[in-house]
């Protein structure tokens, strides 16, 4: 596998501009002759479809839900970063670039991250122009808040519903193109395979989720904007439909999959209440602006939180990281909470949570002010737990939340398969080993609104395309492979539901490859996963047929892929013998117990290559070169 990141030469500040200048353009009249297939309508997919449609390309866009507006991005709460420096607190493109590289523990590509920081400001401008009702100050200008891993206030927001408003903005821009005829929307479709013809991605096979029919679509480029795979842990903050299947199909068709072990555990989620639990609900990171995290100083203190006096509380983040306090990055906050719980100082009925306490900020600012800023989050907390967060501290626990790993892409967002691109959470590009809060929305929109419209022309304009249509042999072959897989699933007629297998896999992943990983636990996982997979293929219960709406079949399809992908994730975790960002190998720690990187051996992206069914995948490495940022131990003290 050849990994050429296509990073433009020249000083980092000029790379993006000079790249745009040097990239081939497609003549405006020719654009409509190119068919572009966009899979996914989250921030990345909807913004890509909209902007490519505006340019005049012929776009077809696909999603699982009944309407594009329901993509998982809708659930993002806290905000979106940009280096506007409106608060005059010392922010700059350079600082956002620096914070993101450091936040990712020096495992991201400099050129991409710098570009992201540059584009961040344009995103806010564009979103305000298309009607996103950002939070504002009395003077009418935009308001910002602080997020983890930053000492400036650069996070723009729309109450606790930033993802919703940004997605509805991108969706409306896409609907405008639907009205203009440049974008055609195919909801309730699951991409099941990618069609390669003469070495290029030329189409997709999708299953119509209403009729069960398999449909083929051909095009000149395929954009996977299919989100992240945090649901490999079964319980996560992600929506139920989030999956790895599209990325996995790409991997099997030759796309390198990078750093799958970089998975983020979010520190502030509502703890689970029982076996029946189907998802975990996030309490936005923005709450850490005003909430203080603590546990009792003594083990097994069973007193009510409000009865524990100040002197007997351990505000462990403030104690261990005085410079950033409660606003340390997520991986650090999660591990610190886990350490407290492991010491036996966790709280709540199960002992599996820590307090997030608003008492002091309510005293300082008043309950009304806190309600104004976070009211919907307090309501959500109350709805789920039946507890009043204004009166008693919330209880929180870390949960699987986001995946930094994903399809390897070059500077143009193209995977190792020509014509196959990956945008948003589906790619691996910008967050290294840990993503900072409010940076995923920024990346999704940067990729879709600004990067792909500039880079796709280079591919389309610089390639010779043979005519391909959806009845070609390659499509028929892809279609029958999908049919076989569906039939195989339906023929098992066993006893265990797809959800039971998923939950079983999730337990293994969480326990053996979760917040802390060791060689022993990872090897254990590598033994257990194939066992679960084998049972899945012999004992799956799956009623109904493939030619109808069949949600159990959809679920089984996704779980089958998780059961293969998870093994690669664990292999990657085993291979990376260092700790970095969210990937914490307990063997590799500093004397203070912090993650210890091993730059001499692991300053690279690990890119996995599919070698065929039953064969060991090959590991390729993209070395990371830091020319602009001095590598240092990540310090938030």
């Amino acid at each position: 596998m050849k990994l050429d990141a296509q990073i433009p030469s020249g000083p980092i500040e000029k790379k993006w501009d000079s790249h745009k200048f040097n990239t081939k353009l497609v003549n405006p009249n020719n654009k409509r002759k190119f068919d572009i297939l966009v899979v996914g309508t989250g921030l990345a997919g909807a913004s890509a479809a909209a902007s490519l449609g505006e340019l005049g390309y012929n776009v077809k866009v696909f999603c699982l839900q009944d309407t594009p507006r329901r993509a998982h991005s809708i659930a993002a709460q806290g905000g979106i970063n940009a280096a506007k420096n409106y608060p005059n607190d010392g922010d700059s493109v350079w600082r956002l670039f620096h914070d993101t590289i450091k936040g990712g523990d020096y495992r991201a590509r400099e050129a991409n991250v710098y570009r992201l920081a540059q584009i961040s400001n344009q995103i806010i401008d564009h979103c305000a122009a298309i009607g996103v009702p950002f939070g504002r100050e009395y003077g009418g200008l935009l308001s910002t808040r602080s997020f983890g891993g930053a000492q400036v206030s650069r996070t723009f927001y729309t109450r606790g519903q930033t993802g919703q408003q940004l997605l509805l903005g991108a969706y409306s821009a896409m609907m405008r193109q639907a009205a203009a005829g440049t974008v055609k929307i195919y909801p309730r479709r699951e991409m099941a395979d990618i069609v390669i013809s003469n070495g290029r991605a030329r189409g997709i096979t999708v299953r119509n989720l209403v009729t069960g029919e398999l449909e083929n679509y051909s095009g000149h480029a395929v954009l996977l904007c299919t989100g992240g795979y945090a649901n490999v842990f079964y319980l996560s903050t992600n929506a139920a439909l989030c999956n790895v299947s599209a990325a996995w199909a790409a991997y099997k068709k030759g796309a390198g999959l990078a750093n799958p072990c970089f998975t983020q555990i979010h520190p502030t989620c509502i703890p689970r209440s029982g076996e029946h639990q189907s998802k975990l609900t996030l309490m936005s990171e923005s709450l850490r602006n005003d909430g203080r995290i603590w546990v009792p100083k003594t083990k097994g203190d069973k007193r009510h939180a409000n009865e524990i006096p100040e002197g007997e509380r351990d505000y462990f983040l403030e104690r261990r990281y005085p410079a950033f306090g409660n606003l340390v990055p997520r991986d650090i906050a999660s591990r610190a909470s886990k350490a407290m719980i492991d010491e036996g100082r966790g709280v709540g009925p199960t002992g599996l949570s820590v307090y997030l306490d608003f008492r002091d900020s309510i005293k300082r600012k008043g309950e009304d002010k806190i309600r104004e800023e976070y009211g919907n989050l307090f309501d959500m907390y109350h709805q789920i737990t039946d507890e009043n967060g204004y009166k008693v501290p919330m209880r929180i626990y870390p949960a699987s939340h986001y995946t930094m790993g994903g399809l390897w892409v070059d500077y143009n967002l193209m995977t190792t398969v020509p014509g196959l691109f990956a945008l948003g959470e589906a790619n691996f590009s910008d967050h290294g080993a840990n993503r900072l809060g409010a940076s995923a929305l920024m990346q999704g929109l940067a990729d879709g609104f600004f990067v792909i419209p500039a880079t796709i022309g280079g591919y389309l304009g610089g390639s010779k395309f043979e005519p391909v249509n959806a009845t070609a042999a390659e499509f028929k072959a892809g279609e029958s492979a999908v049919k076989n897989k569906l039939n195989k699933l339906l023929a098992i007629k066993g006893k265990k539901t797809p959800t039971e297998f998923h939950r079983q896999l999730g337990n293994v992943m969480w326990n053996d490859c979760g917040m802390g990983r060791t060689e022993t636990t990872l090897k254990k996982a590598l033994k257990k996963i194939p066992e679960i997979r084998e049972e899945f293929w012999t004992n799956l219960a799956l009623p109904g047929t493939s030619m109808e709406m069949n949600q159990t079949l959809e679920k089984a399809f996704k779980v089958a892929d998780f059961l293969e992908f998870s093994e690669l994730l664990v292999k990657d975790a085993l291979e990376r013998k260092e700790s970095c960002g969210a990937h914490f190998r307990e063997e590799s720690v500093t004397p203070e117990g912090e993650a210890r990187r091993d730059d001499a051996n692991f300053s690279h992206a690990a890119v996995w290559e599919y070698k065929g069914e039953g064969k060991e995948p090959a590991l390729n490495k993209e070395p990371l070169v830091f020319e602009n940022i001095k590598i240092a131990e990540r310090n938030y003290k």
Partner: protein
Amino acid sequence: MNNSKHFNVTIRVWRQSGPDEQGRMVPYEVKDISPDMSFLEMIDVLNENLIKKNEQPITVESDCREGICGCCGLVVNGEVHGPDEHSTVCQLHMRRFKDGDIITVEPWRVRSFPIIKDLAVDRSALDRIIQAGGYISVNTGAAPDANSIPVNKDNAEEAMDSAACIGCGACVAACPNGAAMLFTGAKISQLALLPQGEPEKQTRALNMVAAMDCEKFGNCSNEYECEAVCPKDIKVSNIARMNREFMLANLFSKH
């Protein structure tokens, strides 16, 4: 957290195998429910049992399970999104019910939202209303600095109140006339309240209202049911604003 004992309920669910098939209510017993379960988790438990018996589970749509994606939408005991105020049915918890309860569960019943299967309906008509004008026509890359256009904070907040719509269709399901006025009014209001949306105000109102009619949604007869069931507390004042914008557009539009 409610630690009281687990309990049993009976749910009577609308089963319909396809758009053109005859549907009917079917009772199921669901045992050993924890009060901390969400309503949809209770249905999960039932579905898991059905799958194990090789019976078709109940088709029910949901995705985020935290009240923001707008996927879920059920009529529970005759109430759209169930008994809780300002919440979606995925936010409803079983602590609202007690042992022995009989709970009826039905899909949205609206002419413009045909049933696909069981509790899943087709709400694509709402997308077509947005497509008719629920946007601001600005191409990517053309925008001025975000702070170059100040927006009065009150207007921004009010626009956000309208923008909070999750497109679930509850307002339509609750309306005796099957009107989509609250949905459409909310989008028209959001964009009319912002200076960025001003230039297209008139065409937007005309086109979106026309699309609404074309999708065979009913008319408003001031029942206020929509506001009462809206999980995001969107007010009927949005309908008044829509009517005003529509009227002004009819009077003054050059289109």
